[in-house]
């Protein structure tokens, strides 16, 4: 008997005034699993993420999180709060995704007050410190405004904030794309640690196949709003079946790689324009 997945999405569709951004997307993430969505820019990845966290409403399809139907954005404040304990998101831009006027402690405390209303001030403080430890921020950094922190540190705060509500799933929408390689490596390690320790699931959205390979178990490939290929990450990347996935895979620079125009032409063929 298989366990109920923490997140299941079926037949998800979203239109923006006639433009179909997401079209019939299905996937599920088992408890503690990690799924990647890869695909070219504009293929609808972020739209899927936004629908899953309730920032935009699907045109059709269902979203089930932790066994509860979450197909519509929350209507009441209470429902929102409950959803906050199921799915959280970390965005690409670590600066813009933090209120520039609040330090990490304030940011985390606000979330804790919302989700752990029964906790006293001291308990909350302890939890804030714990979260800070978890993402590797020291006390000074916890009290600094985002402006005074580096990109990696900011992204750590964003991750801590996502963790504060103790959700089952964290969506990482290009969360490491803006970071320098060395910092990106730190954050990727951190994400792996957290998953190990807390058993949280990830939905990773990325262009970067190296990152995908590093922290996900399963991968779906999206193109023009549809899923065109899926499977275990290692398989998909090692033996891409769809021509587009192959192109994607071959476009990643690596030692001894030579760029060719032919690659792109392959995908261009499918484009109407």
């Amino acid at each position, binding site marked *: 008997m298989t366990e109920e997945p923490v997140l299941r999405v079926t037949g998800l569709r979203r239109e923006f005034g006639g433009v179909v951004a997401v079209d019939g997307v299905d996937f599920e993430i088992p408890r503690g699993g990690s799924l990647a969505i890869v695909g070219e820019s504009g293929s609808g990845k972020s739209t899927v993420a*936004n629908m899953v*966290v*309730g*920032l935009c409403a699907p045109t059709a399809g269902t979203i089930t999180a932790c066994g509860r139907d979450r197909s519509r954005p*929350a209507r009441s*404040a209470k429902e*929102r*709060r*409950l*959803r*906050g*304990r199921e*799915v*959280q*998101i970390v*965005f*690409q*831009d670590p600066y*813009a*995704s*933090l*209120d*520039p*006027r*609040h330090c990490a402690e304030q940011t985390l405390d*606000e*979330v804790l007050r*919302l*989700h752990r209303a029964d906790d006293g001030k001291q308990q909350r403080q302890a939890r804030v410190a714990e979260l800070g430890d978890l993402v590797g921020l020291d006390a000074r950094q916890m009290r600094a405004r985002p402006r005074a922190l580096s990109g990696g540190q900011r992204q750590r705060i*964003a991750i801590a*904030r996502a963790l504060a*509500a103790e959700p089952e799933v964290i969506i990482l929408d290009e969360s490491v794309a803006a970071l320098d390689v060395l910092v990106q490596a730190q954050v990727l390690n951190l994400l792996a640690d957290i998953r190990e320790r807390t058993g949280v699931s990830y939905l990773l959205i990325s262009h970067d196949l190296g990152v995908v390979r590093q922290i996900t178990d399963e991968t779906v490939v999206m193109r023009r709003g549809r899923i065109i290929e899926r499977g275990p990450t290692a398989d998909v990347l090692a033996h891409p079946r769809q021509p587009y996935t192959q192109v994607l895979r071959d476009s990643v620079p690596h030692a001894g790689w030579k760029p060719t125009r032919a690659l792109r032409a392959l995908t261009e063929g499918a484009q109407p324009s």
Partner: protein
Amino acid sequence: MTIAASVLDGVRTRRRRVAGNTVVVWVCAAIVGLALLLAVFGPALAPHDPDAADLTYANVGPVAGHPLGFDSQGRDLLSRLLAGARTSMAGPALVVVLAMAGGTVLAVVSAWAGRWIDATLSAVMDVLFAFPAVLLAVLAAAVFGPGLTAPTLVLALAYTPYVARVLRGAALRERAQPYIAACEVQGLSAFTICLRHLVPNIAPMMAAQGTLLFGYAMVDFAAISFMGLGVQPPTSDWGVMVSTGQPGVLQGYPAESLTAGLCIVVVVVAVNLLGERLSQRSEGR
């Protein structure tokens, strides 16, 4: 009357200038601070009763104890200028508070709610825009009679759409920021998000707009008083003094009009420069 409009609009196009010398900022801040102090303590500081008239001294120049001399009614000019600071600043300040409050609420509601609410509010704002402020001033003066009420209401009403428009842009930009989305995902209520995150983050913009608005409110207030629709003599008010002293300018007694006019210009210049700096800072955040 609606100079403020153009300025407010233009402010958005401004970008950080090479950091100018801070001396100017300090001088302006000092002037504005002094003006505010005068607004609070001016009437108390006045050496003579600003309304005590003695026609035998009408238009007499400076004498001992009366460094600026007397106005056409034989009242001490310095005392009137000092006492006038209060009405001259209080009215515009009230206008700024009202317009900022109204404009901010409208802007935030528009930006947050979007869709038809935004569209409706924008249309209402456009209608308000098209109303000539003079017309509003005249009508309000007719209904409310002379005094502070009419010009305050009118200018608050006239500035609100400008404030709303500028702040709506800022609020929309802010609303599109991921940190707001993150708050939503956390489950914070819309009201909380607006109050704790959105509004504080457009606050620098609000401060800048408020400051600039104050300068324009002072000018517009004075203009309304000048037309005889606002604060009425014998209340000492800089705008009124420019107006009542105006015949004197051609008669060779320009002191009342010019000193009051100078007070307005100096304070407005200082306020404008400060507002510009503030808005540069809020833009270059």
